[in-house]
């Protein structure tokens, strides 16, 4: 699999929370190459099933979750042809001024984000981030044409093409969480050449950025025995301490904390070691803010794990990841799934602890 070209397609395809149609289409096609079935549910989750070979009925199942939606902008008011907007999900207002956008009106329109020039700003304001309500989108058309083509509630995405940086790094928009979608594709491709007893649901979840909403409903519908969420996590960079970050290109971050079933964490670590795959352990003392948080408390509870893909500059349009890390996450997931046998759930106990080094 050409991961870079997959990530390029995934990242450049629009799919703002609640409006994931286009990217869902792309993801469905990618998953369908390796899965037995692909379907879309009522909330727009794209669900691929790759059946296992286990004989026991009903067959055990594991759910993988990586979200398909990206943060974006939504038009709140149109004044004299200029578009006022707010965010869908948590866009960083510091990086919006001067961006190129695509406004998804009756047809797609190129636009730019403007504000007042620095020359006329009072000194006090010059030092500050411009709040969202002082920014606007200019599509260059006369007011009457704008009102015809764009309505309140239409969306806009930041325009960005993938940049291949030196070394193993690439940067683009929406790697949060399309990098995880790519990792799930790698996992499915790997599994095609492996034996696995359990059914595997690879779920591209919708609406994660606005409250983990797709994960809530898809986990309820699938009622899997186990789940692993894959999401991005803060990579090391100037201004952040080692305690707040994991390292780039040093492997998947296997998260540990109350959101994670300890035995699943340990099994992931054992799997990484057996593969001689570099990995990092990332503590998460409370809410992880990921799909794992919602899945864990679905129905009567689902043992859940979380794998982080190290990423710099989260929620900007230059999110940066290591291609190798993405590939490693996919391989780790596949090897983990291959380990799941008929007796795995019986060994997934709380006491005595399943041995494993941290």
């Amino acid at each position, binding site marked *: 699999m050409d991961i870079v070209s997959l990530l390029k397609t995934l990242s450049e395809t629009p799919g703002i*929370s*609640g*409006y994931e149609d286009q990217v869902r289409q792309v993801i469905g096609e990618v998953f369908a190459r390796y899965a037995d079935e692909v379907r879309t*549910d*009522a*909330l727009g*989750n794209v669900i691929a099933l790759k059946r296992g070979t286990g004989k026991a009925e009903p067959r055990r199942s594991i759910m993988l979750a990586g979200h398909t939606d990206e943060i974006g902008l*939504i*038009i*709140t*008011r*149109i004044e004299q042809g200029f578009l*006022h907007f*707010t965010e*869908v999900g948590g866009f960083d207002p510091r990086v919006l001024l001067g961006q190129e956008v695509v406004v998804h009106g009756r047809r797609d329109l190129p636009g730019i984000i403007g504000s007042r020039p620095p020359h006329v700003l009072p000194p006090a304001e010059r030092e500050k981030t411009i709040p969202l*309500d002082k920014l606007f989108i200019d599509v260059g058309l006369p007011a009457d044409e704008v009102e015809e083509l764009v*309505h*309140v*509630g239409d969306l806009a995405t930041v325009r960005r093409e993938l940049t291949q940086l030196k070394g193993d790094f690439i940067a683009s928009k929406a790697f949060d969480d399309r990098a995880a979608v790519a990792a799930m594709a790698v996992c499915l491709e790997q599994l095609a050449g492996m034996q696995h007893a359990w059914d595997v649901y690879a779920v591209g979840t919708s*609406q994660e950025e*606005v*409250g983990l*909403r*797709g994960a*809530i*409903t*898809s986990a*309820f*519908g699938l009622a899997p025995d186990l789940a692993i969420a894959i999401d991005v996590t803060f990579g090391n960079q100037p201004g952040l301490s080692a305690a707040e970050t994991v390292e780039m290109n040093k492997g998947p971050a296997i998260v540990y904390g109350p959101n994670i079933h300890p035995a699943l964490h340990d099994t992931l670590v054992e799997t990484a070691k057996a593969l001689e795959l570099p990995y990092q352990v990332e503590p998460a003392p409370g809410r992880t803010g990921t799909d794992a948080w919602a899945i864990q408390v679905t129905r009567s509870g689902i043992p859940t794990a979380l794998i982080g893909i190290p990423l710099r500059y989260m929620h900007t349009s230059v999110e940066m990841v290591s291609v190798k890390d993405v590939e490693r996450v996919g391989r780790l997931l596949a090897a983990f799934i291959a380990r799941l046998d008929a007796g795995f759930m019986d060994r997934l106990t709380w006491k005595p602890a399943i041995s494993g080094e941290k």
Partner: protein
Amino acid sequence: MKELIKKLVETYGPSGNEDKIRQVIQEEIAGLADEVRTDALGNLIARKRGQNGGKRVMLAAHMDEIGVIVTHVDEKGFLRFGAVGGVWPHTLLGGRVVFANGTVGVIGTEKVEDEERNKVIPLEKLFIDVGAVDKTSVPVQIGDVAGFSRPFADMGKRLVAKAFDDRIGCAVLIQTMRDLKKTPHDVYFVFSVQEEVGLRGAMTSAYGIEPEMGLSVDVTLTGDTPEAQTMAVELGKGPAIKVKDGRMLAHPGVKRLLVETAEAIGIPYQLEVLERGTTDATAIQVSREGVPAGCVSIPCRYVHTPSEMVDYDDVTNAVKLLVAMLEKPIIL
């Protein structure tokens, strides 16, 4: 409809204490549904059976209102209180409240220092005076809940009351039940409880009903008053069809259905992008395996004050919109 609206807004019913308002609504909808029941949380659920295998549709308007709860009674009979739902301290001083047993109280404040005069007086400094001469003559006790007291005012085109959030939604649902003569759908009209404290009634009623489409009918803010927030919704420009609010993105198909219906019957409508606050539809949307959900909003000024204002034409047009939507097949 104004008589119905007046009756609904003037009835007591803070979150968790919806018995009286439920009783009033139950009387209003008598004979309009095939089944009526009250569930474990207190939601009033009226079902109108469809004839031709349409969809199972849930419409929700919450019958609870914000209020205050007594936390302490002092020796002289003054009551300290906490908020039930999103009470705005700006609106409290000098206001009146009414308890379930009819006890009226007025809200007073501790001494306000000169430097504090320009600030909002926090809840902790306020108290309720029920006119008692001492602790023993206080006719309510700790844990009792009061609603705000304010008469309904008919200004002609515009109406003012406390609790338009969301009794106006309840009125719209009741009138829709009256006007809807025939529908292919199995329609559940839910008068939900505890919306103001976390969409709790919608959560459980949606789980029980398992709708194939869910709509809330609730109020939304407007951007049409002096120096208001940036928002395109105005009073009198038609019911607002929700695109987004603080916690929900409406299902694009539901939004489209409402827009097309409004255009087909020729009523004005507005598209709503609300940055804060949410409705029962948020809970309905993530019920079980997920439900395509949206919201018909009644534009409302001064939400969560005792003087909320709506436009009567928006209200009647919302009824027309819902009736027209329910009369036709629903394709999302």
